[in-house]
């Protein structure tokens, strides 16, 4: 029974194993980035960046069809352009980062939709928007795993400056020149992981696997280390459960994975011991002073 429901699909079908590997790679690579996005109150930045990537991927698609490389490079370029342009505008002018990012991603999105609608068919648009986790080939898998590895290693290298940049940016700027560098490397990681994510889950769903596990983890633990681990676990669990749901009930896999993550998030809001609703309703006795 359990075998049939949980293990068998992965044993019997290669595409399920590939999908699982791809999703786990994204879980390991993207969720730590999502945790920092959440801690920096930039959760919606991820969403904006995901939209910004669209025209790049579309141009890549126009140039060489459904080519993984072209779409990846296009997406990376578009995402980096928007990240750097909005970062520069916010650092050089009085406009805040959220407003400048919104401006650039909307421009980018408009360009993307125009490109897709003039040249591509609706099926292609669906591919870009919703991904094809059940049709990952070797090249795509290698790409996902490579990006996940680079992402985790880079995050380990910039960990301390990044934590400072989040907690007290003014102080980091006063003692070090790494502030801007750290910020841009971090944005680059966001873009990279979104590009990886959109191959599997689509541009719209890629943000989900970044942000939902991070938001859920916030209700279970307080330290940064704990948050990173908990978020990755939530993402991995959502991947497995989502793929199985999609297999047994013929649901689109990307949204199924994100929906499971959403359910876990919802449960965490209620049941999480750190500031969850239930924990607030049933207060524990306080300490002596």
């Amino acid at each position: 029974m359990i075998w049939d429901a949980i293990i068998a699909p992965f044993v019997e079908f290669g595409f399920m194993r590939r999908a699982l590997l791809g999703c786990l790679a994204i879980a390991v690579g993207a969720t730590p980035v999502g945790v920092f996005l959440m801690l920096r109150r930039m959760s919606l930045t991820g969403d904006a960046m995901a939209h910004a990537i669209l025209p790049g991927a579309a141009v890549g698609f126009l140039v060489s069809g459904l080519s993984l490389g072209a779409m990846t490079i296009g997406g990376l370029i578009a995402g980096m352009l928007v990240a750097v342009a909005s970062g520069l505008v916010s650092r050089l002018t009085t406009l805040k980062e959220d407003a400048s990012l919104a401006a650039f991603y909307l421009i980018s999105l408009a360009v993307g939709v125009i490109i897709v609608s003039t040249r591509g068919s609706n099926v292609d648009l669906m591919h870009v928007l919703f991904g094809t986790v059940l049709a990952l080939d070797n090249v795509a898998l290698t790409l996902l795993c490579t990006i996940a590895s680079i992402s985790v290693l880079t995050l380990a290298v910039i960990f301390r400056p990044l934590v400072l940049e989040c907690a007290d940016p003014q102080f980091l700027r006063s003692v070090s020149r790494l502030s801007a560098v750290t910020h841009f490397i971090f944005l680059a990681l966001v873009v990279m992981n979104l590009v990886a994510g959109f191959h599997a889950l689509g541009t719209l769903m890629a943000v989900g696997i970044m942000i939902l596990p991070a938001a859920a983890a916030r209700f279970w633990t307080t330290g940064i280390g704990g948050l990173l681990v908990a978020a990755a676990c939530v993402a991995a669990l959502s991947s497995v459960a989502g793929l199985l749901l999609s297999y047994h009930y013929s649901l689109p896999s990307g949204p199924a994975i994100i929906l499971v993550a959403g359910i876990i998030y919802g449960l965490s809001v209620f049941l999480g011991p750190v500031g969850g609703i239930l924990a607030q309703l049933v207060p524990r006795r306080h300490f002596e002073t």
Partner: protein
Amino acid sequence: MIALAFQNLTLGYDRHPAVHHLDARIEEGSLTAIVGPNGAGKSTLLKGVTGALSPLEGRVRWGSVAREDVAYLPQQSDIDRSFPISVKELVAMGLWQEVGAFGWLKRAQRARLDAAIAAVGLTGYEGRPIGALSGGQMQRALFARLLLQDAKLVLLDEPFAAIDARTMADLIEVIRNWHRQGRTVIAVLHDHETVVTHFPETMLLARELVDHGPTPRVMTPENHAQARVLSEASQLAPEICARDAA
């Protein structure tokens, strides 16, 4: 020895000067209070020293202190109080210049970390998240971080705003220790009693420099009256300043 000097320094926002043609020298090892009415350019001057604000005219000339040797406590820090780090981790940031982005904390540095936390009376709070601190405790933690920065020049922007008497007394003791160790300290302050009691030097600002020197000479009713007049004399439609660069 001169720690740093302001030469015809004009700082401001959007071409409106907040500090206007300031000439002054800060002696090495001096303990200086900057006083003046609201909008007198006190905080702006500190931002000019840290380099956060570029001069509209003139410059800050560095003497025996290098720009890297400065520790700065802003009036409103943009610390994210909800960020999940502990008091100890916050204070340990003060070791950044020694440890950098990748180094370990050596045994001696851990000892200094504990000593700094003890010096501001936060022993026992090391593991608390910074979100759980009161305003006064937060200010203590930030002073501990300043202690670890081990800087030759310490800039404090209204360090005692919304702080109770006990905390203030403890933190003044930290400042007096810096003074005894020969560090240069500049603090923006509002409470005249604190200035007269604890700060040998005072700089009275009202956009223009009113007076700068020994505190008893500077803190006179005449000087304060002049500062009030200067700070109220702001023009609605200002013309381009014609004062030439000295």
